[in-house]
């Protein structure tokens, strides 16, 4: 029995947890889906593969009891961030760490082979390459060309805060400059060009709030976007309000966001949200020398203040 299935089953059997949160194969090709279960037999369905994209810590604040959760490096930092914010107690979670070898970005694969994901027969990772099967033909690409941008830029693939660390299956191949490329493209624009760029992006926002829903650190009981007195943003999807919503959200998750990439991945209309969120991660690091979710005993960034820090920011 694979290690994860064995460990998860044991946790349930020994009564160490009430629920296991992991991944099982999804109902679409190359997909996985969250498995939230009390049933030890279900553990046989748990998988670890290059498609376990979701950040399962999003479920932690709302679930009761003791929780065994499967995390990648970025997800484990989200768990720590939730602990820092008192959203979940450390002794309520058993963290099962996956030494992450990177998530495959299916949008990139679709572009490379000019086929949609359901038309592709197979995607196999082989070391630092990936083999894609289309009918009778097989194409090989360097792994870095198909890994998600946030994975290419990842500095913490191996979960540090964890109770059980699974054996590694593969090593993460990173390319920090490639992972940063789209953000730099936006940065290199003039202020006017950048404004026009974001206006165009936010014109197609449908305000489904999937970016917020999949975000583990968007844990507010009531989001500012739903306040009516005062009304910070209109509930109607004017591009200006869509943009305001996202700018305010970026500020709210500053110091909490671990660049798991799920906001951008969830967006049904391809708004490059990571170009905002990763930029914020970089700013937080630069201004406050702070990396979210790396120290569970640290005060949350926005809950602490030192007189001499980032003086240039607040005027």
């Amino acid at each position: 029995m694979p290690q994860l299935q064995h460990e998860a089953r044991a946790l349930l059997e020994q009564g160490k947890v009430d629920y296991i949160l992991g991944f099982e194969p999804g109902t679409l090709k190359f997909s996985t889906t969250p498995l939230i279960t009390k049933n030890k037999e279900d553990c046989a369905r748990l998988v670890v593969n290059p498609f376990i994209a979701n950040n399962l810590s999003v479920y932690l604040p709302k679930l009761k009891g003791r929780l065994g959760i499967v995390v990648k490096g970025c997800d484990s930092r989200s768990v720590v961030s939730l602990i820092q914010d008192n959203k979940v107690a450390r002794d309520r979670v058993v963290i099962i760490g996956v030494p992450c070898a990177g998530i495959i970005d299916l949008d990139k694969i679709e572009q490379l082979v000019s086929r949609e994901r359901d038309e592709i027969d197979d995607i196999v990772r082989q070391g630092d390459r990936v083999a894609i099967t289309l009918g009778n033909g097989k194409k090989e690409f360097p792994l870095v060309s198909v890994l998600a941008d946030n994975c290419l830029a990842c500095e913490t693939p191996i979960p540090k805060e964890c109770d059980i660390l699974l054996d590694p299956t593969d090593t993460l191949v990173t390319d920090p400059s490639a992972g940063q490329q789209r953000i730099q493209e936006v940065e290199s624009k003039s202020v006017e060009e950048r404004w026009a760029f974001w206006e165009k992006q936010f014109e197609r926002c449908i305000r489904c709030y999937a970016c917020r829903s999949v975000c583990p650190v968007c844990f507010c009981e009531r989001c500012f976007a739903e306040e009516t007195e005062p009304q910070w943003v209109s509930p109607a999807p004017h591009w200006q309000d869509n943009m305001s919503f996202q700018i305010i959200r970026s500020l709210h998750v500053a110091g909490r966001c671990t660049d798991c990439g799920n906001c951008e991945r969830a967006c049904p209309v391809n708004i490059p949200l990571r170009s905002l969120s990763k930029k914020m991660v970089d700013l937080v690091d630069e201004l406050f020398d702070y990396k979210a979710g790396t120290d569970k005993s640290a005060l949350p960034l926005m809950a602490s203040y030192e007189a001499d820090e980032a003086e240039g920011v607040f005027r």
Partner: protein
Amino acid sequence: MFKKIGHSEIAKLLSEWSKESTVLVPTRADGVTTWAKWDGRDVSFLDWYRNTVVPPKSFLLPMLEEMFRFQKGKDGYSLELPPSDGRKQVIFGIRPCDARALAIIDLVFREGYEDLYYVNRRNNTTLVGLACTSPYDSCFCTSLGSGPGDARGVDLMLTTAGDQLLIEEVTDKGKELTAGASGLGKAAEADLISAREAVELASRKVTRQVDLKDTDKALLANFEKAEFWEDIAAKCVSCGICTFLCPTCYCFDINDEMDRQGGARVKSWDSCQFALYTRMPMENPRVEKWRRVRQKVSHKFLFYPLSYETTGCVGCGRCIRRCPVNWDITQVLNSLTAKVA
């Protein structure tokens, strides 16, 4: 009744229609397949288009719409309706599922109650259907009494027949578009056979199936069972993707956007998956996620059949394709009936 047209003649046809109508066609922008006003040239979508991310309901029930403006004067408020947009629109390439979905929205916005904003647009809209040749693995229209070549719901139906497109004139509105149009030929028996074969081939590619025989009974029998629904709803993250991208979901919010002098009353999409949707001063009947998920499933597969003798789902598969956690309605429906049996 049946005509045909060569691929090379399509641009000319769309040009002719563009004189009197806004012709909307599938296009790709920023990696998203969407609808846009035809640019007067490009018909390459005929080669790659499968379906759009946002369904064409957005041209009948816009995501954001001004209902009227109001202005404060000496004697109270004056109202001003938006200028009536009488221009006709042709949605070229609408898929059978999305056209059927509009017929389902009609039941609510045109037949039970007449929503003038919707009805006016609907009357000004002609639907030119394009039969599917490559359905997604998430499509399940054939389980809902439809299929890739279903012409119910469109005004004209185009089906691939070899290197031509067979045109079926389904309604009088459709005939108005073909009347006098250039480039159309008479369809021969062989074209009809070729088109039927193409549709049959596409139907075979729709492999996802649901059995809806006892779904309504199962929903009714389990309606009050919190644990049953908590289990089904467990991984849902309560975003609005499945409802906003659903071609039959029509729920909306109304807000007044104003300053001291006046403003506008705007209508925008809303979703039963949001906790705020049913929030009222005293209570919220759907605070818990499972109640909202139950509402979505029940509305489409219990309340619609009871009220209108149809499901509120057409099997387009968007909610499956785009769900960020792969919450799959077909899996849920099949598990419901399995649990009852």
